[in-house]
Every structure is written in structure tokens, then in C-alpha cells.
């Protein structure tokens, strides 16, 4: 373990993390946008960072995390972008752990947190259902208490990387007779439980990351309930530090824009007035979102969190990523139709992949239309009020 990272100056901290990445980050993972670490690669990454003392920057030290300041957490994100690191989901550390820290029992923390840190156990998030996407609270997967067990029945969908996960945290309906948000409970289940099956779904980027998860009389011990019965909706909202802010950074847009610049030069569009104006417009969008993001982060570091703008940055960042990827296809002309790397101007990337990877970002983590509804309520009041 390095000495106290929080005691380092920001510059020294940045250098130390950058040096470590340069010395240790596997070269074959440095395929930004396209590559996502999954399964054994993801386990290996968590283990590497754990062994070197870089794991779980946002976790408090008492749980084995680094307890880093928000500023230093954001520096880690910046350096990973700079080093062209692959995307990592890390649902256990980012999504489940904050829930366990806030609502879990001591026994639950003791059982689950350490394996997440070491990369021994990967988690997936069982929230969406076929008829409950943006309107998540309408979910219908049921859990019925029988003695000291819950019996789960129903179906989850769009469960990212479920095929590689060891456990799932799942929102279930435990009371049908109350307001929909008030009858939901948060349960933990092992993926190898009898009655639990996973079916991967092929997506438009030729990946099978998203899955359907079926629960057919899946029995879990009552101690797998996190928080109180029927309070799962509140429990699910716990999140730690940096994530909402990091998600608003134009990281993917910037990376896609670099590909665009190479491509524009490679096909000789750099003097084309139309292309220049479109590229200039995207460039300014990236600049300005970068400016907004860093100032919002500065405010958050001072302790001033602006919830409306955090929601908006997700909309801005994902919409921008799509628009940059649209322009990639436009710039490539006929080659946009290639189902392989274009090989123009040194661009050894399958443009269609970038284009497709940009699609779901406006849908997941709260579809952009839902985000707009939420922000509209913050800014303009609730409808009918």
C-alpha cells in the first residue's frame, strides 16, 4: 500500500497514479470506447488495483477503501481517460457497496464487501423488467416471505453482465396493495441459486453484455434483505461520491472526437466548409461541457451539489456522444457501411461499433426523457401544481 494518498498534493497524487497506470495497465485493454472489461478481465483489474492500493477510491477507509477526497477521485478518472483505459462497470463497488454501507447489516458488510474489493465476486443489478423500464417502480417480480426465506418469482431484463456475475441485487415487489414505490424490497441472491437462469441478449454492437434473468421459485435466506421490508425504493437510491459527477464528463465524446479528427483529415474533409462547421460545433460542445463539468465538480468539492445540473450533464454528455458518433459515419462516406475497421487516416476502428455503443447511453441510467422530467420538476415545479 502507498502511504496516505490523501496527504499527497494533487499533483503528486496525479503523477503517482499516472505512473502506476503507465507501468501496469495492460496494453491490450487500451481501446477506449470500444473495450469494456468483463468477467476475468474485470476480476483481474480489481485485484491489480487492490494489491497495489488503488482499489475503491470513494469507499471510506473503515470498509477498506481509500477514502479519497472527491477531488482526488476525479483526478483518477481524468488520468484513466488520458491513458485510454477501457470502460469498467464495477457494479459491486459502485452500486451495491454504497447501499450496504448505508442500509446493510454488519453481517452483510462482512460477507460481501471484502470479496468486492478483491475482485473475487462480481455483481449485477437486477432492476429493469420487460414492462418496467423508465417507470421502474411499476416492477412486478415478486418476493414472498416463507419462514426464514424469500421466494422470488419473475423476470429482470437489460441486466448488464449478468452472465459473468456471481451475485445479483434485485428489486422485488413485496406488497401489491400500496403506492407502487412503497411495496418494493431490496434483496441479494447468488447467481447459482436453483431456479435462477440467465439468457444473454445480443445487442446492436454485437455484444452479449445485456441479459434476461429469470426467477423461478428462487429461494434466498431472509437475511439477504437489505434495509427494511418494503423500503427498497429508498435503499436503491444510495450512491457514493464521484459517480454521478464522473458520469457527466464528456469522456466518451472526447475519445470519439479524436477518432473523428483523424478520420476527417484522412478523408481530406478538413477544408470542407460544411464538415468544418459541424466539427467546430461538436468541438465547442465538448469544450463547454468540459467547462461545465469541471466547474460543477469544483462546486461539489466545496460541498455545493447542484442536483439539477448533475441530471442535465448526463443528458448533455450522452446526447453529445451520439452526435459525435453520427458525424463519424457522415465523415466516412461510403465506408460508413463497412462492418470492420475503416483503415482511413490510421483509424483502425469499426465506426459502426462506436455508433452503436453510443446508442443506449441515452436510454440507460434514467432515459434522457425521464431525466428531463425530473429536472423540469426541479426547475419548473411538478405538473399540475
Amino acid at each position, binding site marked *: 500500500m502507498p502511504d496516505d494518498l490523501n496527504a499527497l498534493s494533487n499533483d503528486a497524487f496525479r503523477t503517482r497514479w499516472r505512473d502506476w497506470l503507465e507501468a501496469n495497465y495492460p496494453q491490450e485493454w487500451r481501446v477506449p470506447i470500444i473495450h469494456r472489461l468483463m468477467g476475468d478481465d474485470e476480476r483481474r483489474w480489481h485485484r491489480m488495483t487492490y494489491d497495489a492500493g488503488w482499489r475503491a477510491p470513494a469507499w471510506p477507509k473503515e470498509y477498506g477503501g481509500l477514502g479519497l477526497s472527491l477531488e482526488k477521485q476525479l483526478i483518477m478518472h481524468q488520468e484513466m481517460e488520458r491513458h485510454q483505459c477501457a470502460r469498467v462497470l464495477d457494479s459491486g463497488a459502485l452500486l451495491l457497496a454504497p447501499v450496504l454501507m448505508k442500509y446493510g447489516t454488519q453481517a452483510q458488510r462482512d460477507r460481501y464487501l471484502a470479496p468486492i474489493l478483491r475482485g473475487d465476486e462480481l455483481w449485477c443489478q437486477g432492476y429493469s423488467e420487460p414492462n418496467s423500464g423508465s417507470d421502474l417502480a411499476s416492477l412486478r417480480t415478486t418476493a414472498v416471505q416463507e419462514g426464514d426465506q424469500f421466494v422470488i418469482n419473475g423476470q429482470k431484463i437489460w441486466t448488464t453482465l449478468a452472465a459473468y456475475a456471481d451475485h445479483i441485487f434485485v428489486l422485488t415487489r413485496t406488497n401489491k396493495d400500496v403506492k407502487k414505490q412503497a411495496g418494493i424490497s431490496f434483496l441479494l441472491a447468488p447467481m447459482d441459486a436453483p431456479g435462477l437462469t440467465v439468457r444473454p441478449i445480443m445487442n446492436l454492437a454485437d455484444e452479449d453484455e445485456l441479459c434476461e434473468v429469470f426467477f423461478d421459485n428462487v429461494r434466498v435466506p431472509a437475511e439477504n434483505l437489505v434495509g427494511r421490508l418494503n423500503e427498497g425504493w429508498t435503499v436503491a437510491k444510495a450512491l457514493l461520491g464521484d459517480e454521478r459527477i464522473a458520469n457527466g464528463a464528456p469522456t466518451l465524446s472526447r475519445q470519439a472526437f479524436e477518432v473523428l479528427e483523424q478520420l476527417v483529415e484522412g478523408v481530406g474533409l478538413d477544408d470542407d466548409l460544411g464538415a468544418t462547421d459541424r466539427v467546430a460545433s461538436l468541438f465547442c460542445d465538448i469544450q463547454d461541457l468540459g*467547462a461545465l463539468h469541471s466547474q460543477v465538480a469544483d462546486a461539489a468539492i466545496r460541498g455545493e451539489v447542484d442536483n439539477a445540473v448533475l441530471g442535465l450533464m448526463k443528458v448533455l454528455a450522452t446526447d453529445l456522444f451520439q452526435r459525435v458518433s453520427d458525424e463519424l459515419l457522415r465523415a466516412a462516406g461510403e465506408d460508413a457501411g463497412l462492418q470492420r475497421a475503416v483503415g482511413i487516416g490510421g483509424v483502425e476502428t469499426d465506426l459502426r461499433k462506436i455508433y452503436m455503443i453510443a446508442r443506449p447511453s441515452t436510454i440507460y441510467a434514467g432515459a434522457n426523457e425521464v431525466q428531463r422530467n425530473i429536472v423540469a420538476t426541479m426547475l419548473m415545479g411538478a405538473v399540475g401544481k
Partner: protein
Amino acid sequence: MGWRTDDELQQMLRDSAVHYFGSAGGPDHFRKVRASTAGFDPAAWKQMGELGWTGILLPEAAGGSEMGLQCALTLAEEIGRSIAPEPFVASAVIAATVLAASDTPAAGALSQSLVAGTRSVTLAWQEQRNTIGLPAFATRFEGNRLSGVKRFVPAWHADSALLVAGTDGAANILAVLDPAAAGITVRPARLTDGTFGAEIAFDEVVIDDHAIILRGSDADEALSLAIARGTIALSAQLEGLASALWNRTVDYMRQRAQFGSNLSDFQALRHRMVDLYSEIELAGASWRRAASALDEGRYWDIALHAAKARSSQVAQDMGRWAIQYHGAFGYTDEADVGLYVHTAIRWSSWLGNAVSHRRKALEAHRRERGIHA
């Protein structure tokens, strides 16, 4: 304020600006200036002088309040919010920056009347349409005579003091001129914000030695800084304007009912307003970043171009939807919406419009990356 923050000085300044414009500014004041022959309200300018605002960038030695760019920008935001047609950017930012760089008696005298708010000063520098940054001047100082044509001179009125930028062929020169001097022809034109711009022709105008206030690299530095500061201040005004118009539009949508619901309840309209709000947030962040770059000595940074582009765009976009969501009423002169829209047109097209600045931003980026070096 959200993520935006003021330091103590900025907060005090903002409070007094909100207070002042609350009673003396806004649509009524705008209408009064628009209806005036001069397109300028000397009493309002005098009051802004008494508040220390006309001299906000001038050194204490010249009687200025020397509060610095950040404070000037806070004021610019509030000026934008109240669509004040006073020549703050033209005079208190651009001309004042040039005057502050000179230690000549002529500059000192003009600074004092600017600080007091008894004069407004305008700098005639631009010659071509769509000029961004410091151009090569065609206006010539030959011997003691000046000839040339300046266009798009802002904040023109009969009592305006005049600074002119030109070259003697080897070095740029800045001089103070009496607009009534022989050989000067002024062709004023009313602008959409109610003020006047002017095209000013100089035909062998005699220049007194004492009138020259800056020369050579000092003149270049002062001009470049002045125009850059003016561009950022104008961006802040535009963002302030857009933000005030957003609020005004939501207020209207809340009280206007159709089909049994307030306009503010319709989802299509709510989403549009959220998107406009996002653009305003981007503009606010963009000009602040530009101001930081300028404070670090990078006058014509990518951030400056991005800021003027974003602010110009959002002010026009907000204007478009403000009219739309006010319905037919929004198309009347009686509704104040149109005043904001008219002001947005003037401010967004002055000192480089959105599309020009976006290109400049990309050019600057490509230069940095060594593409098309």
C-alpha cells in the same frame, strides 16, 4: 446560483446591481432609451459612474475602482439580465482597458470623465465585417494626419469621446480624437438594442502629438486585451440575458392556461425549457472558463471563442422559444419579450457571432494540435 459562486466582493456588487437595475433598469428603461434621439441616457450613465461601475477596470490613480475582470463580469451578467443599453462593454470594458494602459495626460483626462460617468468613450478599431481578434489596420497615421474608415463603432452618440486605432506602417497607434474635428464624417445607424453604431471616416484629420496615447507593442497589447475582455464581458451579458428571459418565459407559462392546463405543465414545452436551461448552464461555465484563461494571460484562447459562440447561440435560441411560448402576445411590441430578443440580436452579432467563433475555436485547437500548422 447552483454551482456558480461569487466571492464576497462579487456578491456585494451583484446585490447592488440587482438593487439598482430593479428600480432603474429593465424593460421600461430600455424603452426609454430606444425612444430617445441619442440612444443613450446620460443620467443613467452618470449614476453608474457614481456607483463605481464605469471605472470598474480603471486604476485607483485615475479615480477608478479597479475591481478587476471577475467583478466586471458579475456586473455584465446583471446588465444582461436587465437588458441595460448602457455602453458598459464598449466603454467601461473595452475603452477603459485601452485608457488604463496609457500614462499620458490625454488618457488620464478621459479616464477621469469616464470614471465620473460624465462621458462615455468608444474605441473605433474594426474595419471589416466579421473581424475577430486584433486585425492589421488599413487606417493610417501619416505625419500628423489620420485617414481611413472605421466600421461597426459601438455606443455612438453625439457626446461620445472617441479613441481610434491605426498604424503608421510600422507600428500600431492609439489616439484620442475630437469627433467634431475637421475631416471626420460620422454615419450613425440605430441598432436593435436601441443604441447607435457608426461608420466613421477620417480624411486627413490632424492629430495633435498629445492625442497619441499608446504606440507599438503597448498599443497591440492593450488592444488585444481590450477586445478579448469585451468579448468575454459581452458573453456574460448574453448569458445573463438568456437566463432572465428563461425565467420570464417560465413565469408566463405558469400563468397562461390552454386546454385546461398551464403551459408550464405540457411535457413538450417542459423538455424544451430544460434543454434551453442546459444551454444557459453551458454558457455560464464557458465564459467563466474564458475569464480564467484570460486571467492566466491567454487572451484569445479556445475558451474565449467557445464562450462567445455559446452565449450568442443560446441568447438567440432562448429568444426564439420565448416568443413561441408567449404565443401571439410574444409577437407584440407591448410584450417585453421582444426587447430581450432585439437586444440578443445586437449583442450576439457584435464582436463575432456564434458560427464565426466556433470556427475560430476549431482553428485554434487545430493550431495547438499541429494540424494545418
